[in-house]
């Protein structure tokens, strides 16, 4: 080990991150599940680990909870080494994917479990349990067995059970994935409101990009065990760093082309750029392309003529597939406008063509 790798205690301070994941890697045998992950979480933040199944996001959560040990790297919380502590000594609580409620205990005893095993004062327990149950609106089910509750109700109990311990950090492992679509939307809203209200830091894992966009302060996109991009939902959507991010979050057009003498050429589309020569890839969101009714373009715009190949009605909007003449189909999202056909002029702003890495 080189002298540069001597662990340094981070400075304690108001703006120090709550959780620091430092160069963490995890291997199961020959399989490398996480590769050199570094990410910080600020106190009070709602950070989402977003990724496809098998991308390693749940493994990272389990490393922070303490159910797995990192192969290399360190995890620090509140300026204390976390990854060397056993799970029961970490001030981190988890809402499990299938809730993992204790079937032999009532809802009340499930919620009281954490307080009891940690030896909280006996007088305090009932009031804190009631408080937690009220927070998730499950007071009337206090005496029920978990097996008699619906999925959404079990989810609330799991939340109350984790929050009653007043953790510094709450880990949520796809907590909404077992719910049906309507309930999921409702629980998303409640979860976000709850997080704002109690101010606990949430680390949320999901494979659902819409859910991540709706809930998070920041999204960490995980791909094949590495972080693809970490940014706010608005930024990650508007300025994706890579083609993968642009395609995973929302829909996009990927334009492949070449820059020569400050002119980018992608098929029939050409526009000036201030970048060095070479091959290039742009992401152009479907909603940034507009109809150009009068056939005129501004100086910062690119105009092209295209044939509508397909039109999909989506209520408030329409999704077109437009052939720009070089065989490339561009997706265009327009406000609902009625049926379109034939050759039409379209424009987009040069600033909306975002250069992305392959």
């Amino acid at each position, binding site marked *: 080990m080189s002298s540069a790798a001597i662990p340094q205690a981070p400075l304690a301070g108001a703006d120090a991150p709550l959780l620091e994941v430092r160069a963490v890697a995890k291997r199961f045998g020959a399989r490398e599940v996480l590769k050199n992950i570094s990410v910080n979480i600020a106190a009070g933040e709602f950070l989402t680990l977003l990724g496809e199944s098998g991308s390693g996001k749940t493994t990272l959560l389990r490393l922070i909870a*303490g159910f797995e040990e990192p192969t290399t790297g360190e995890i620090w919380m509140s300026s204390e080494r976390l990854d060397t502590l056993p799970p029961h000594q970490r001030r981190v609580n988890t809402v499990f994917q299938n809730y*993992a409620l204790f*079937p*032999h205990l009532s809802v009340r005893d499930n919620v009281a479990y954490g307080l009891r*095993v940690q030896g909280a004062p006996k007088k305090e327990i009932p009031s804190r349990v009631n408080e937690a149950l009220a927070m998730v609106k499950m007071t009337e089910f206090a005496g029920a067995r978990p*097996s008699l509750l619906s999925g959404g109700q079990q989810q609330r109990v799991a939340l109350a059970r*984790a929050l009653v*311990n007043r953790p510094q950090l709450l880990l949520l492992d796809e907590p909404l994935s077992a719910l049906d679509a309507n309930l999921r939307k409702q629980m998303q809203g409640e979860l976000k409101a709850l997080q704002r209200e109690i101010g606990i830091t949430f680390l949320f894992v999901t494979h659902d990009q819409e859910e991540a966009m709706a809930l998070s302060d920041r999204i960490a996109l995980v791909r094949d065990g590495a972080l693809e991009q970490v940014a706010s939902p608005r930024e990650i959507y508007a300025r994706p760093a890579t083609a993968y991010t642009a395609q995973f979050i929302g829909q996009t057009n990927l334009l492949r082309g070449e820059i020569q003498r400050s002119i980018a050429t992608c098929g029939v589309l050409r526009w000036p750029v201030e970048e060095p020569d070479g091959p290039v890839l742009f992401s152009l969101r479907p909603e940034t392309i507009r109809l150009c009714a009068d056939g005129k373009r501004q100086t910062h715009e690119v105009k092209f003529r295209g044939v509508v190949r397909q039109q999909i009605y989506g209520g408030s909007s329409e999704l077109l597939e437009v052939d720009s003449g070089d065989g490339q189909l561009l997706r265009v999202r327009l406000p609902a406008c009625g049926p379109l056909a034939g050759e039409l002029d379209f424009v987009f702003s040069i600033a909306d063509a975002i250069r992305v890495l392959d």
Partner: protein
Amino acid sequence: MSRHSPTRRSPLLAIYAALVFAFIYLPLAVLILYSFNRDGVGGFPPLHLTLDWYRQLFADEPIWDSVLNSLLVAGGAVALSLTLGLLAALALDRASFPGKALFRRLVLLPLILPGIITGLSLLMLVVLSGLHLSLLTVLLGHGTALISVATTELFAGLQKTDRAQEEASLDLGATPWQTFWRITLPNLKLSLVAAGLLIFTLSMDEIAVTFFLIGRDNTLPLEIWGRLRRGITPEINAVSTLIFAVSVALIVIWYRIRMRSIGAEAKQLLQRP
């Protein structure tokens, strides 16, 4: 649903089934019947019913001593084999260690070993270690011979439990020890009861191993066996009838416990969309 099955079954099948059941249960019925027969085993058909044999049985102290001995041995064997079996099952379920496959086979071996082999080898061990043959050696013999039964039942129970519950317990701040007592064991309750009842029953009527390890105090099966050599008495029928009744009661209790837990699972299934 129609009460008549669509295909007509051959009456031969019904006769065959009746014969099989007669073969299994007729001896039992005869045994129970003769325990109430005034004229004893020889008197057929039984004309005069009586409780005399039971009165005689209840006054028969050696029998009751042997019942007590059997209960002691069975109780001790249940405690011993459940404790050791639970540890072995936990090791098989959770730990990975070199020689695990061999360990598993060695633990399960007594299930298929003939009782005579087990009994003889345990006898040699007892003699070598200088212990006196007594109820304690029988208890140790039953307890160790039945570890395999406990291990299989408890291992199956552990395989069915949801490990996420133990992780949730640790996550909520419980130590591994607290987690074991508050989550793992309650989840295994059914397997523990089932294994306990099975081991209790097996120990209660064990003869082969007992035969090698018994000291001066008889267990019930050996007492009955000893008396049978002097001829069948209706008193033996009476005690056998009582054993039968207790066994049935145990099975009913076990079945009820099992149905209650399955009932909860079924309700859970119905709740799911």
